[in-house]
C-alpha cells in the first residue's frame, strides 16, 4: 500500500499523532501546517506527476479556511478529500460535501474510524459516479445493480422502482455519506429538493425490507441532519 497522503492540520500534537498512526498503517505522509503550505504542495504535486492519492484537510487553519483549498483543488483534480474539523454544524458539513469533499470527520474521532473512511475514499478514487460499483454484499444482503437483483439471505427481495433507484444511488457511493439533496436530486429530480419526507418514507420502506431490525440498522445508516450512508461493502 503505497498511497501518498497529504495531511493539512495546524495543531502539532494532532498532526504528529495522526502521522505516526498512518505511517504504522503503511501510508506515505506529507504534512502541512497551514493553508499556504497545503496550497503549495497540491499545486506542486499536480504539476510534477508525483500525485497525491488522498488529502486529509483541517478547516480552521492559521492563515485561512481549509474550504479555500478544497475549492481550489476541485477546480482541477478529483483527489479524494476527507475533511477533519472541530466544526460540527450540519449546514457546514452539507456545504462541504456539496463542494466536493468526499467525507468529513468531526473532531474528536478514533483512528479506526479515520482508517475506515480513508479506505472507502481510496476505493472510490478515480471512479466517477455513473461507473461502476454495481455489486454490494453485506450482512446477508447482496445487490446486483446490473441485473436489478436484490437478495436477502438468498431470497429475492421485491423493490418498487423508486426504492431500487434510491438503493442503487447509495450502492454507487457505498461507505460514503450522500446528502439529502444529492439523493433527492438524483432519484426524484431537482424540483424535489425540499421533499425530504419522501426520503424518510422510502428509507423506512427499504429498511423494513433489508434490515433485521429497522430500529437498529446495520446497512442503511443515518447521518443526522446531513444524509445517509450505506455501510461499506464487506
Amino acid at each position, binding site marked *: 500500500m503505497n498511497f501518498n497522503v497529504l495531511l493539512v492540520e495546524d495543531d502539532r500534537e494532532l498532526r504528529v499523532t495522526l502521522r505516526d498512526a498512518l505511517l504504522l498503517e503503511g501510508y506515505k505522509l506529507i504534512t502541512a501546517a497551514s493553508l499556504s503550505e497545503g496550497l503549495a504542495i497540491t499545486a506542486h504535486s499536480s504539476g510534477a506527476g508525483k500525485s497525491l492519492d488522498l488529502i486529509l484537510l483541517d478547516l480552521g487553519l492559521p492563515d485561512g479556511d481549509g474550504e479555500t483549498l478544497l475549492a481550489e483543488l476541485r477546480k482541477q483534480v478529483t483527489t479524494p478529500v476527507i475533511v477533519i474539523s472541530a466544526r460540527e454544524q450540519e449546514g457546514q458539513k452539507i456545504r462541504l460535501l456539496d463542494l466536493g469533499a468526499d467525507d468529513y470527520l468531526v473532531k474528536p474521532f*478514533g483512528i479506526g474510524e479515520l482508517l475506515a473512511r480513508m479506505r472507502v475514499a481510496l476505493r472510490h478514487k478515480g471512479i466517477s459516479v455513473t461507473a461502476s460499483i454495481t455489486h454490494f454484499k453485506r450482512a446477508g444482503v447482496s445487490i446486483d445493480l446490473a441485473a436489478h437483483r436484490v437478495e436477502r439471505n438468498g431470497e429475492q427481495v421485491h423493490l418498487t422502482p423508486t426504492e431500487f433507484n434510491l438503493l442503487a444511488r447509495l450502492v454507487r457511493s457505498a461507505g460514503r455519506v450522500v446528502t439529502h439533496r444529492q439523493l433527492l436530486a438524483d432519484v426524484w429530480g431537482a424540483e424535489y429538493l425540499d421533499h425530504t419526507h419522501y426520503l*424518510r*418514507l422510502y428509507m*423506512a420502506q427499504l429498511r423494513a425490507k433489508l434490515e433485521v431490525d429497522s*430500529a437498529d440498522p446495520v446497512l442503511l445508516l*443515518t447521518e*443526522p441532519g446531513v444524509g445517509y450512508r450505506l455501510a461499506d461493502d464487506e
Partner: protein
Amino acid sequence: MMMPSQKKSHYILGGAIWFVGWLAMFLFDGHFDSSNLAMLLVLTSALAAVCLPWRVSLCLVIVCVLAFDWYFISPRGTFTVDFHQHALMLLVMLVVNLIIMILMVVRRGQAERAARHASEADILRQWSDTLLESSAPHEHLEELQNLLAQVSHREVALFVLKNELPAQDDLQQVWQLGDAGIEQRLALWYSTRNNQQLGRGTGRYEMFFDVYLPLRARGRAVGAALIKNFEIHELSTRIHLQAICDQFGNALERYRLHRQEINTREHAQAQLVRNNLLAAISHDYRTPLATIMSAASSLDEQTEKLDGAQHHQLARRIFDEAERLNIMTNNILQLARLDANNRITCDWQSAEEIVGDLTRRWRGRNLERRLQIQCQPALPLLWCDAVLIGQLLENLVDNALKYSPVDAPVKIQITLQSNYFLFAVSDNGQGIDLRWRDKIFEPFQRGPVTDDGTPIIGAGVGLALCRVIALAHGGELSVDCPAEGGSRFELHLPLRSLPENTTILTKNSGEIA
C-alpha cells in the same frame, strides 16, 4: 385671557346697563330730587364697571358725571352749579365711582390671575400624569412640543439627548423636533450643556429674539426647548414653560436611571449564572479528566508491570472518558447556541431513524446490550431537528445508564398518543427524590449526593439542554418516578400532519404500503 366674543358681549352688557340707568334717571326726573338720581348713577356705574374694562369705565364715569351735571343739576343745560351742596354731591359721586372702579380693577386682576394659575396648574398636572403613565417619556416629544407651543402661542423647537451628553456637538445624539437654524442649534447645545436659560429676559444673551429653556433634571439638562420670538415681559409664561420642561427632564432622567438599574441588575444576574455555570462545567470536566490522567500515567509509568489485557483496559478507559468529555462539550456548545438564537432547523424525520442512529453510537461504546428499544410500528413522520432530538435522547440514555446498576437495562419506548409523540426513557436506578425533580433541569444542578455527601456527578448541563430542546420544539420534558422504582423521563412532541402531496404520492404510485 378673554376671548374676543366674550369681550363683545361684555361691552354690550355694559352699554345696556348704562342705557337702563340713564333711562331710569330720565323717567324718575321730576319725581325724585337730583341727589336721589345721583344714587342711581352711582349704582349704574358700579354695575357697569363689573363688565367693562377699566379705561372705558373711567371715561364713561367722567362723561356721565358731566352729563348728569348738564341734564339734572340746575341750572339745567349748563355745567355751572348753583348750590354748594350740588357741587359736593358731584365731587363725592365722582370719587365714589372712581373708588368702585379701582376696587373692581384690582378684584378682576386677582380673579384673572387665579384663573390663570388654576389653568397652569391644570396643564402641569395633566402633563405630569401623561409622563407618569408613560413607560418611555421620549415617546412624548411631540406632545411636549405641542404643549409648549400652545402655552406660549409661539413656534417651538426641541432638542433632546438620546443618551448621555456627548463630548462634541453631534446631531446624531439628539432627537430634534421643529426647525432650528445653525445659530439656534448652537444656542440649544449651549443651553443643554450649561443647564441655563438663554435669550430675552433671562439675563444671558439678551440680544436673542428667542428664549431657550433647558429641560432640567437633577442639576443637569437632558435637552433644551427653543421658544421663538418670545417677549421680554411674559415672565410668568416663561416660568410656566420652564416648569413644563423640567417635568419632562425629570421624567426622562427617572426613566434612564430606571433602565440603568435594570441593566445593572441583569448584568449582575447574568454574571452570576455564568459563574455558576463555569464552576459546574469545570467540576463536571474534572472527573473524566482525572480518570484519563491516571490511566494514561499508569500506561506511561507502569508499562512493564501491566499485562496485555490491563493495557487494553486502561486504553479503553481513556477512550470512554474522552467520549464522555466530548458529549459534555457538545452539550455545552448546543446550550450556548440555543441560548443565543432559538433557531432550530426542523424537517420531516423518522423517529425510528433517530433512535437507530443512537443505538449505533452506543454500540461503539459497547453499551447497546443494555438498551431495550420498543418502537411502535408505522409511526408517522415527526417534524423536528433530528440532531437536537438525537442529542436529547442521548443525554437521557446516558443519564439512565449512569444512574442505574451496571447491568440493568434501560428502556426506550416510542409511541403515538392521541395528539403527540411520546418518547420515554426509563431505568431501574434509585429514582429521583421529589425535591430534586424540578431542579435537575436547571443548568447547574447536579443531581443528588451520595451518603457521604459527595455529589454523584450528574447531568450538569445535559438535562438543562434536554429541556431547552424540548421547549424549542414546542414540546415538554418531564420526569416521573414510578412506584416500582427507577425513573422515567418523558418527552412529548407535538404531532403535525404531513404536507398534502404525500397522500397523492401514496395513492398514485401505490408504492408506500
